[in-house]
């Protein structure tokens, strides 16, 4: 028995055996919506590690490659930064006695306002007082959309018998065509004066290459110094997702650096991946976005209701990518 075992082990992974299998895996990753260049990089890494090694007795070359990819995927999907938003909020409340400010940004229609409402729901359930700042003063119906969410969430809190004082949600709006950075500033002042724990700042969707709109976002961040700037990206996105996140980070950093140089620069602090329920196992965008930014996915949006917000599971994403 031992003899046949070691004989099978002598399956050297030569180029001829490895490369066709790597090509197959590369296409597999692309079909899972991993950007082509990232898929190529991952496969090249695996090739470097595997070339000249041996295949075990009951393994296929494909399986060996998959196993070799897992650590790289895990590393990309779990950057170091904290994903415990609730703890961070409570810490600021305790130590600094001021509201924690979170700004939501991203391109048009990805789910910023909906994700914001889901986060509000989560915070309310944890007994926090939430002020929603309607800083999308541009898109038709944006303010009414948030008002509707705030009304719904208020009602839900009341129905759940949550303590009216402890958990409270309010909308702060100053209509359309007012300056979003100013609306945010006033909202934060209002939140301080009325002991809100968190300010959730909704912003208008903007294309990453629209210079003036991007500068407007940077100004909002610069003036209000939110505790977190969250980028909302949708799981549906293809290669453009990488470009979106890269540009949002780059322009924010560049425009907020000011005289203080890069020490003051503010970039993207975390990611919300929306519409995860629409892609089945084509979950490559999760990998693409963490890879691009080195920032963690704080939440995954899995539907159109307030409860449809999950923590991101790197294991589940790995499994889906390699399935």
């Amino acid at each position, binding site marked *: 028995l031992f003899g046949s075992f070691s004989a099978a082990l002598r399956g050297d992974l030569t180029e001829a055996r490895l490369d066709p299998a790597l090509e197959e895996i590369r296409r597999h990753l692309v079909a899972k919506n991993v950007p082509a260049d990232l898929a190529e990089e991952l496969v090249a890494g695996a090739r470097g590690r595997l070339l000249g090694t041996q295949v075990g007795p009951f393994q296929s070359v494909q399986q060996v490659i998959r196993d070799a990819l897992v650590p790289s995927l895990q590393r990309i999907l779990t950057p170091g930064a904290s994903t415990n938003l609730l703890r961070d909020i409570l810490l600021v409340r305790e130590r600094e006695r001021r509201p924690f400010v979170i700004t939501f940004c991203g391109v048009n229609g990805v789910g910023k306002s909906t994700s914001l409402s889901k986060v509000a729901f989560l915070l309310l359930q944890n007994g926090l007082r939430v002020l929603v700042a309607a800083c999308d003063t541009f898109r038709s119906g944006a303010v009414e959309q948030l008002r509707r969410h705030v009304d719904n969430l208020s009602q839900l809190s009341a129905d759940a018998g949550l303590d009216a004082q402890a958990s409270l949600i309010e909308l702060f709006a100053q209509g359309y065509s007012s300056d979003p950075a100013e609306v945010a500033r006033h909202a934060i002042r209002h939140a301080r004066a009325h002991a809100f724990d968190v300010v959730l700042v909704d912003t208008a969707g903007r294309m990453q*290459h629209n210079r003036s709109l991007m500068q407007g976002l940077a100004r909002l961040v610069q003036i209000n110094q939110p505790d977190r700037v969250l980028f909302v990206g949708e799981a549906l996105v293809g290669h453009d997702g990488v470009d979106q996140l890269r540009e949002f980070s780059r322009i924010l950093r560049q425009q907020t650096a000011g005289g203080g140089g890069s020490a003051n620069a503010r970039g993207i602090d975390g990611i919300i991946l929306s519409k995860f329920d629409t892609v089945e196992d084509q979950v490559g965008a999760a990998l693409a976005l963490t890879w691009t930014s080195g920032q963690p996915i704080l939440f995954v949006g899995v539907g159109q209701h307030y409860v449809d917000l999950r923590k991101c599971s790197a294991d589940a994403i790995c499994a889906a990518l390699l399935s």
Partner: protein
Amino acid sequence: MSLSDLGRSITGALRNITSSDDIDQPMINTMLNNIAKALMASDVNIGLITSLNNNIKKNLQFEAGASAASKKRQIQKVVYNELVNLVDPGVEPFKPKKGQANVIMFVGLQGSGKTTTCTKLAYNFRRKGWRTGLVCADTFRAGAFDQLTQNATKAQIPYYGSHTETDPVVIAQEGVKKFKSQNFEIIIVDTSGRHKQEADLFEEMVQIERAISPDEVIFVMDASIGQAAKMQATAFKKAVDVGSVIITKLDGHAKGGGALSAYFQAVQSMGPISQVMGMIPGFSQSS
């Protein structure tokens, strides 16, 4: 990768082969590989790329003793034909008829740009002198009716909707009926965003279609979409009679990559395609 980058990559892949003295199989494989890579970097569906490659291979049968020049000509022709086959819907685009009601229903994934594009299209028709109305049959999304109301008001287009009725089928039916009775020629019906994984949402869409018997169903697709385009577009086509596709947000970047994938998918399964964006003066591109 932008559409023009893609064009350049494909031309480059072809030029490599046409500038060499003789043609052999490894060269053809390299060319196919380069074309495949360029398409992959544009989010084009991977299955589509494979079938394109197979078709090119199948149709490349050189006669014995063919000269290098004639092989090159044949390669160019076959590659060109197969690319065109991908793009050509082979169907006439929808043409509304003057003096009668033309009902157009918008469908698509969440946030793809339906509501915005409804108004752009309506405005476009109104400007050309068609009596045009908008119906908001989205009772799900918070603020949907406000959004349509504000857009329609800015563009001066009559609209129909309700803050109290919760059944989108009823609203769609009533709205179309009302506009028909007033001799409107173009009646555009906006619906909620939906996705194939939620059967109830698809069922609702089918019911709206049944209730209003649209003359045209338009599938609205976001240019940035990746590999999920195929699965979703195919499901919409299967559920309702999609006749055209509008690709939105092409102003995002020169990167029309996903749009290309969407486009290929769409024209293969759905028919003619138009691009409507930023057409309303005084409306910025994303408003």
